[in-house]
């Protein structure tokens, strides 16, 4: 029984200076966890994510991070991440160290971390300037005589935070739609916090074991947090709030409007439940998805 509150999960497993990975490739991005980290005023975090997205833009604006490990710095389908650019280009609110890879390199780092390998080999980076600016990207010679191949080192975060559709109280977690790099980062991490839309009976999980992405044995805390991935989305539960992604482009252009937004929507609410209430029912009505149910399968 690992069910706890977001407050307690963050207080227990996220410490100043930790290496933290909140994954979710466009979908299932753990904004509720990020906002709680901001509220608890964590500092000097090394934030890992393939696509830092608005979630790390907000955390960087709030001063939580000293470094990003990433592969694509953008507001998907919209434009740049202004707060991160301010930190990188102007040191506002503080300088931000960058350690960058390509997407395949980044997920390869998680894979190596999860598989306890010394490196992940991949045919990327040849001819690129990336290895020149990131000395962690190296090359090994194939012992079968087929030349050199790039490698990236394992990435083992102190804590990984995964948002998913459902889990049981032991942390056996099922995720569908885009599954990104969540399995790899969870197995790579020292501690795992799972945040879900629904806590379900163990029998629901057991009815479809191939759907289980993360087994309870590697999970430390389960947090029940409906709408916890807004403004990103959870397949089958709510759509992506594209309007907010566009609005963030405006809000974040300016340091003070960014701060005002953080005051109102992060520091100004006690928890995600209050954020959900403040957002108002029309938001959730607007983001309600259609029904598109899977054909069940027989495990008998």
């Amino acid at each position, binding site marked *: 029984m690992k069910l706890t509150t977001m407050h307690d999960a963050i207080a227990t497993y996220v410490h100043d200076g930790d290496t933290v990975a909140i994954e979710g490739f466009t979908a299932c991005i753990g904004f509720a966890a990020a906002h709680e980290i901001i509220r608890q005023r964590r500092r000097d975090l090394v934030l890992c994510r393939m696509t830092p997205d608005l979630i790390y833009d907000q955390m960087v604006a709030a001063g939580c991070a000293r470094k990003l490990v990433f592969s694509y710095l953008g507001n998907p389908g919209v434009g*740049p991440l202004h707060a991160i650019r301010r930190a990188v280009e102007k040191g506002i609110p503080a300088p931000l160290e960058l350690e960058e890879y390509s997407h*395949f390199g980044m997920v390869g780092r998680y894979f190596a971390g999860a598989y306890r390998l010394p490196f992940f080999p991949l045919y990327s980076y*040849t001819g690129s300037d*990336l290895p020149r600016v990131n000395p962690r990207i190296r090359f090994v010679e194939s012992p079968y005589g087929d030349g050199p191949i790039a490698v990236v080192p394992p990435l083992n975060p102190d804590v990984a935070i995964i948002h998913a559709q459902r889990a049981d109280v032991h942390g056996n977690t099922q995720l569908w739609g885009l599954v990104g790099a969540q399995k*790899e980062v969870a197995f790579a991490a020292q501690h795992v916090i799972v945040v879900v839309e629904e806590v379900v009976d163990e029998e629901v999980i057991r009815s479809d074991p191939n759907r289980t992405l993360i087994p309870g044995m590697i999970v430390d805390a389960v947090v029940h947090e409906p709408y916890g991935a807004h403004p990103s989305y959870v*397949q089958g539960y709510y759509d992506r709030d594209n309007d907010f992604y566009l609005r963030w482009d405006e809000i974040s252009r300016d340091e003070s409007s960014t701060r005002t937004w953080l005051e109102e929507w992060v520091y100004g609410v006690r928890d995600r439940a209050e954020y959900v209430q403040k957002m108002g029912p029309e938001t959730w009505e607007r983001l309600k998805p259609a029904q598109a149910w899977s054909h069940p399968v027989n495990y008998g």
Partner: protein
Amino acid sequence: MSDYSPSEMMIVAAARALAGVRTVFVGVGLPNIACNLAQRTVAPELELIYESGVYGARPARLPLSIGDPALVTGALSVCPIIDLFGLYLQGGRVEVAFLGGAQIDRYGNLNTTVIGDYVHPKVRLPGSGGACEIAIHAQQVFIIMRLSRRSFVEHLDFLTSPGHLGGAGEREHLKMPGRGPQVVVTDKCVFRFDPVTGDMVLVSIHPGFTLEDVRAEMGWDPRVSPDLRETEPPTPEELHLLREELDPQGIYRS
């Protein structure tokens, strides 16, 4: 200029370049619309692969990002990111991929990382995402970029994604499996690459523009094909599909 926008001309030119292709690796925006148009015209068997892990998407609405939930609903397959890059891309299953960037040089090398110095950048750009490996592995790379002197530069500030590097043959020498950039579609013209030298050659200019218009927007003096011609303008059928079916809200028209 006629009754279509430069974006529409770009989409149409890119779609035509996909004739007969069956698998394309694509982001959102113009390339996505170009692929949808190609599916309805020159490449009926085309399946789209998104780096978010989706294969065989059938979106009920225009996707607004590569992770749009509409891409997942009713798709043929959704796989983990590592498999998307390992099994599909590095596995050699992608025939064509679309790329773009903040800067491109004459060999089709692309910069999406920084303007200025890497450590103290003037502008920090998004970085590679999957572009670096897409450029290496896709059997062919198609580039879509608006022509401008700021973007078509003599020297990149940073080489994120390899095109033909220093010239033809370098990719083969480095054993890169993909053949590299094949075409650059801009809002004013289309380039292809000289198989002998590996550099860009202007092959067609869109109706309404001149060679001087093109030169004025480039950081180097482009080579011009002896067969330089005017780009075929969008047909009424192509424009109809674009405007009535693929992008009825005109999101990608301007």
